[in-house]
């Protein structure tokens, strides 16, 4: 940051504090300085049934849909959605939608809920893109979500489609990351583009494309280091990888954001940030073999329009299956 920018931050910070201070100090008894902000509908509709306290959820929806449609039913329905990481605001919106459909009984409510959610999920596009040759797949996401493993799984699928694949080890940062991808490449028997720890990821990505051309491969899959989306430098580094790939391939056919199903509401900000620096056009939702429901992807699809394309259901290379909205929702309501 240069001097001017730092001073800019100082001025902004000080003014911010002044404004906050002024607001708070003027507070008592003055209606016109109230901090009430006009909110969009969801929060308002929430009000009717919140602030109830109860013990930890047990049994969740089991039996719920058989009972009467009273307040307890709607509360519990909402809690079930929240427990699936759909988020309080979205959950409230969904419950309102179901209510508005005026179901006659629990079963009707369930059907309406399911339809509502499935409709919300069905993205415009769930296929693999292959417009260039070699076709590029870039895999991105925060730390530890399952990027490298998912790459092995994607390569496996492509092998089944008789495609020749090159893997590029552009995670040159995390200890052991290059070895990890190499081991998968060996197991799969696919071409591997090596790198030195600390090498420039963009140059590894470039070499991977070069290698694909030289070996007449169909697809290049580029691994990237896990990075927290609020780390500006690392996100800029990713932007550079994207630029190089776009320049070389013309277009990155598939930019896959890997989201861990255990992720809570932060997943939304994550997705927004990655979409902001890379042309993300698909989500891989991993670790769906666990007890996490992965409901945050509903909000992610809603906010970013990026469809979930695959889910990861285990640690081996065959554990990747196409995302099925209906099955996903059923599992979520289980």
């Amino acid at each position: 940051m240069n001097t001017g920018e730092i001073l800019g931050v100082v001025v902004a910070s000080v003014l911010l504090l002044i404004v906050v201070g002024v607001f708070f100090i003027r507070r008592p008894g003055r209606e016109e300085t109230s901090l009430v902000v006009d909110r969009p509908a969801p929060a308002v509709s929430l009000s009717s049934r919140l602030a109830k306290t109860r013990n930890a959820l047990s049994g969740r929806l089991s039996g719920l849909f058989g009972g009467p449609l009273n307040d307890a039913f709607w509360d519990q329905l909402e809690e079930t959605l929240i427990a699936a990481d759909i988020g309080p605001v979205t959950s409230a919106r969904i419950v309102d939608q179901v209510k508005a459909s005026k179901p006659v009984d629990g079963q009707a409510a369930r059907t309406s809920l399911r339809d509502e959610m499935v409709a919300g999920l069905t993205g415009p596009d769930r296929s693999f893109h292959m417009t260039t040759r070699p076709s590029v797949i870039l895999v991105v996401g925060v730390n530890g979500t399952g990027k490298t493993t998912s790459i092995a799984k994607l390569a496996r699928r492509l092998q089944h489609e008789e495609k020749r694949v090159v893997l590029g080890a552009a995670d040159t940062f995390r200890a052991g990351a290059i070895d990890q991808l190499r081991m998968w490449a060996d197991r799969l028997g696919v071409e591997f583009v090596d790198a030195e720890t600390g090498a420039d990821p963009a140059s590894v990505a470039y070499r991977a494309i070069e290698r694909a051309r030289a070996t007449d491969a169909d697809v290049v899959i580029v691994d990237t280091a896990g990075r927290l989306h609020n780390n500006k430098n690392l996100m800029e580094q990713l932007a550079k990888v994207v630029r190089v790939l776009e320049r070389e391939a013309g277009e990155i056919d598939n930019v896959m954001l890997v989201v861990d199903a255990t992720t809570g509401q932060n997943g939304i900000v994550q997705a927004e940030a990655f979409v902001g620096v890379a042309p993300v056009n698909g989500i891989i939702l991993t670790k769906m073999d666990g007890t996490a429901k992965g409901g945050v992807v509903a909000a992610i699809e809603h906010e970013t329009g990026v469809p979930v394309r695959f889910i990861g259901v285990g640690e081996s290379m065959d554990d990747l299956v196409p995302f099925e909205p209906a099955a996903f929702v059923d599992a979520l309501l289980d």
Partner: protein
Amino acid sequence: MFDNLTNRFSDVFRQISGKGKIREQDLDEVLRDVRMALLEADVNVGVAGNLLRRVRERALGSEVQQSLTPGQQIIKVVNEELIQTLGSDTAELAKPTKPPLIISMVGLQGSGKTTSAGKLAKQLKDAGKRPILVAADLQRPAAIEQLIVLGERVGVPVYSEQKSKPARLVKAALKEADRMGNDVVIIDTAGRLQIDKELMDELADVSKVAQPDETLLVVDAMTGQVAVDVAQGFLDRIRVTGIVMSKLDGDARGGAAISVREVTGCPIKFAGVGEGLDQFEVFHPERMASRILGMGDVLTLIEKAETAFDEEEAERTAEKMARNEFDLDDFLDQMSKLRKMGPLKQLLGMIPGASAALAGADVDEADLSRVEAIIRSMTAAERSNPNLIDKSRKQRIARGSGSTTQAVTALLKQFGQAKQMMSAVMSGGAMPSLEALQNPGAFGGGVATKQRPVQTGPVRGQNRVKGKKKKKK
């Protein structure tokens, strides 16, 4: 950012009539917002329910403190309850009667066990211990290599065997540690799902062999509702003694910390705050509480502000801002008062999201002094009318304050934009979005968290919305 802040504060800072004791209806209003905040922060929905019930019991009928409104008083209770749930920050590692201290790192896949093991090894080594790392993750490809690299980096030996069973390997590692005189053994186990019977059996075997003094469950700060299941699942099979929250350098609010604490009762012993091996800290419950709630610290800020500013002055300032008459003199004056309240960075840290929105910029006191110097180098006329400042005046000011003309320009530009903003805000009645306070170009990148526009409609209309909302109940 401010959007969220105001949303969460809506009821808290609304005039809840009357002082005295906290009433049921105050509680309903405020706890509704608190519940939303907790759920948005990923506190488990059941755990949030328990917590709110405790708050209700504590707060109902309690006396409202002089400087606070009932709403703020309730938030204070919530904050205290959160801190209490999160535990004390003096949690230390166990001290075995006879060395070595055996530590086992456990958790889900990708939670950060290996990195945390490396960080812990470094910390203990720096404290004069002789740790050894044990590569017992025989599951993930290159997990052993990863630990070996980390061991090299921190200068700690790593025990590994390529083909073995984890329990057998750990037994051999303990022997090795004994032979080499290591007084700490840190075992990195494979990530596993708490419902994976086979792998959980394996972990139980490892625990039986190792008899760890500490079993640290590593939990990703981004974890959602499932944190409760995970913690319970591990607890069912092994004795967990502590928690490590990883990836706290992200911007997740980290409600999982509450969930896990509530389920396990184990202290949160460490916080991972970066990928660097020294980015490992003791856990601070106060900071975590305000991060989760997103309001706790603001109470401290109010208390501080009340000692520095008085109400009349705040009123005058607000009017000036509204009329767009807030000038550099006022700015200088307010800034010196702010500085008396504490370091700018600390103050900013009390506003939820402020540091994130400022792109993590490190503002130190020297920068503040530079801003002050530049403004002080202006004439009185320039301070009240910055438009006067042309190129040659800029050069003079830069010389006078020992800075550059670019810096003077940047300062004036930022001030001009912010002033516009404040005027709009103060006449509108809503809190500003920080983004608008910033010079949009100054922070580059499209990485900043997306914000929804803050609505600046008249307040009365908004209160009507609130009114409607109440009737619905």
